[in-house]
């Protein structure tokens, strides 16, 4: 049947609007190649990426494609769901002990941002009406104690320090001090250390044994590369962590380390540091992280928007109408509204990677046209919309007045609509259609 071949052509013209059944292996492989590179470029660990790619490929092949997405976009959608699930879905909160004080201990590599984040946590808890105590257990780095004291002063929190003492002793004494002085949270800052430094890892274990923290938080630099898995794994296995704080998240890093660390420890990221000021601390939102890591945030936005606004059935009906040429001005209006729900067209197009404003220049989208077109169609009677041929000069004048436009605008719209219909007739009438020639009249 000749008709089938033609409808196929029509479908490919609407590739952006209609999918094509189920995801096949080729679609998935192709999309996953990009996903793999994206994840590696985001510093997600190689092994984690390998696992993910395999798992997602298995899941995606044979998956139904949403009518509004291309196969590639559909794969990305699945990837995003998997990443979100892996990040932990919902946010997780700080554990507060039923019997105060709640003891929080910070650990991590050198330069991760422990001291600053001890201060940020203190401020965060103060805002919740608590009375924290900061404890300086970094006896190694020059001026580390002083740094915590300055930070403590800035957030108006007492800092417990001791000269010439072992970190285990300092931590234990600090606990006594907290009980006596009714501090309900104790935040212990520790020296930065490498996970392979046995002596210093033993020291952390000893502090842990002495004060039995409710929360041991690993402080991880968001810019960390492939090594994040080794670090997180070692701290978790040797010390046992309860969660993580991701720091320097206000940089332009994609932050794949977060995913790696979460994947190997299973422990949630509880906070993100987003600046050098002491109130630059945020409760971590795992769901937002997936888009940042994928770095395809823009494609993801398209997917989300398409998902939210395009009704599958409507799209199918529309397609049928186009084919059978019963496409009325009402349908035209509906299409416009769909597009509007998806946000401004040039916004949407400019989100597509590689689509620069320069490239968009050639596309000529007049967004102001859309509301105008809507207004015009809405000023028409039901009959006029179904059969525009009855719209004579006096009707045109009435419609223009009703929609606050000029008669030329009404003429222009009717002309565009006729052209579109003619175009559809051509396509379904067997003349075929040149690629790229098809344009909606408001473009």
């Amino acid at each position, binding site marked *: 049947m000749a008709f089938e071949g033609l409808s196929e052509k029509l479908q490919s013209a609407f590739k952006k609007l209609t999918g094509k059944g189920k995801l096949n292996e080729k679609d998935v492989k192709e999309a996953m190649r990009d996903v793999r*590179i994206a994840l*590696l*470029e*985001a*510093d997600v660990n*190689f092994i984690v990426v390998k696992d993910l790619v395999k798992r997602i490929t298995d899941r995606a092949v044979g998956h139904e494609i949403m009518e509004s997405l291309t196969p590639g976009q559909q794969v990305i959608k699945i990837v995003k769901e998997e990443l979100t699930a892996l990040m932990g879905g919902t946010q997780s909160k700080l554990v507060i002990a039923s019997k105060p004080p709640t003891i929080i201990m910070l650990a991590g*590599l*050198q*330069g*991760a*941002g422990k*001291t600053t984040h001890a201060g940020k946590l203190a401020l965060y808890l103060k805002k919740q009406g608590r009375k924290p105590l900061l404890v300086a257990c970094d006896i*190694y*780095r*020059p*001026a*580390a104690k*002083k*740094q*915590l*004291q*300055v*930070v403590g002063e*800035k957030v108006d929190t007492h800092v417990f320090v001791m000269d010439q003492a072992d970190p285990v002793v300092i931590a234990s004494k600090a606990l006594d001090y907290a009980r006596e002085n009714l501090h309900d949270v104790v935040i212990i800052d520790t020296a930065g250390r*490498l*996970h*392979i430094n046995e002596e210093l890892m033993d020291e952390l274990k000893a502090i842990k044994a002495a004060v039995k923290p409710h929360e041991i938080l690993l402080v991880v*630099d968001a*810019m*960390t*590369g*492939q*090594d*994040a898995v*080794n*670090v997180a794994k070692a701290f978790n296995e040797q010390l046992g962590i309860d969660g993580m704080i991701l720091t*320097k998240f*206000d*940089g*332009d*890093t*994609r932050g*794949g*380390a977060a995913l790696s660390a979460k994947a190997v420890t299973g422990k949630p990221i509880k906070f993100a540091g987003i600046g*050098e000021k002491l109130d630059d601390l945020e409760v971590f939102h795992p769901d937002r992280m997936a888009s940042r890591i994928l770095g395809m945030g823009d494609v993801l936005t398209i997917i989300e928007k398409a998902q939210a606004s395009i009704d599958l059935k409507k799209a199918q009906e529309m397609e049928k109408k186009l084919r059978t040429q019963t496409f009325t001005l009402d349908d035209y209006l509906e299409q416009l509204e769909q597009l509007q729900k998806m946000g401004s067209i040039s916004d949407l197009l400019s989100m597509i990677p590689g689509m620069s404003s320069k490239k968009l220049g050639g596309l000529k989208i007049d967004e102001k046209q859309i509301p105008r077109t809507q207004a015009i169609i809405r000023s028409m009677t039901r009959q006029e919309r179904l059969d525009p041929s009855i719209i004579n000069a006096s009707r045109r004048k009435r419609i223009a007045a009703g929609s606050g436009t000029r008669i030329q605008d009404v003429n222009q719209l009717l002309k565009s609509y006729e052209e579109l219909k003619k175009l559809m007739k051509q396509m379904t009438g067997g003349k075929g259609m040149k690629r790229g020639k098809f344009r909606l009249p408001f473009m």
Partner: protein
Amino acid sequence: MENKKSIFAKMKEGLAKTRSNIMSRVDELINYYKEIDDEFFDDLEETLIISDMGVRTANDIIESLKKQVREDKIGDAARIKNMLKEKIAHILSEGSKGFELNSPAVILVVGVNGVGKTTTIGKLASLLKAEEKRVIVAAADTFRAAAAEQLEIWCNRAGVPLIRHMEGADPGAVVFDAIQAAKSRKMDVLICDTAGRLHNKKNLMNELDKINRIIDREMPEASKEVLLVIDATTGQNAISQATEFNEVVGITGIVLTKLDGTAKGGIAVAIKAQLDLPIYFVGVGEQMDDLQPFDPKSFSDALLE
């Protein structure tokens, strides 16, 4: 008859054996080549990616290695691995003259937060002093709590003077004062510490630009080095760091710190390959003498371990 048959059978057996011997040799060779073709190169590329070299640089290097292997018809895996090491060492050393200072010199040390700038300055001051150079240090990190105290402890250890102001003071003013001090005391080298800053913070980068201009204006006769300190545990973001800092202050070389951990620091190869910035020093610990001149060969050996 039976005897005859058995001789014939024996011959056949023997033949079969040699045949299968030959066959298995060929198979082995074929397998060997196949291994070098795909999995072998994939494994090598994997090693590079795990070192934080980045997909692009790793891919470029492996592609050029493949080409060379094909052209020279090399089938020995061990040799290929050595070729790869040489290739990386070559990228790292190409066009790099090593770190040399003419007096007077100003070294501006920059980088994101916590990478090891202050520690590196302590180590570097000590290293230069051991070369009989007169060194002075400027505490132009006036932002981070107790940064100047930290630097002061390092300067005391190294036995070099420090110019510092109060916390929160204008870092440009500290550098200005330090330059005057360096001139009047006839110092060979002035090393300026700066506050850590993320390269995407416009106003902080402008501040750095200002410091840089003060150096150019006040000491145009000095040879200037701008060292970017990069933490070896950093991933692909280091490319962005190097690009942005280079744009604002013109980086002359890299110091790669924290190589005493398990991170390989492959990002340095990507930075050299993509931005042609030489690596001058590596930090391998928190002690005074844990700063070493960068050696491309041992670095690339360690990378592929």
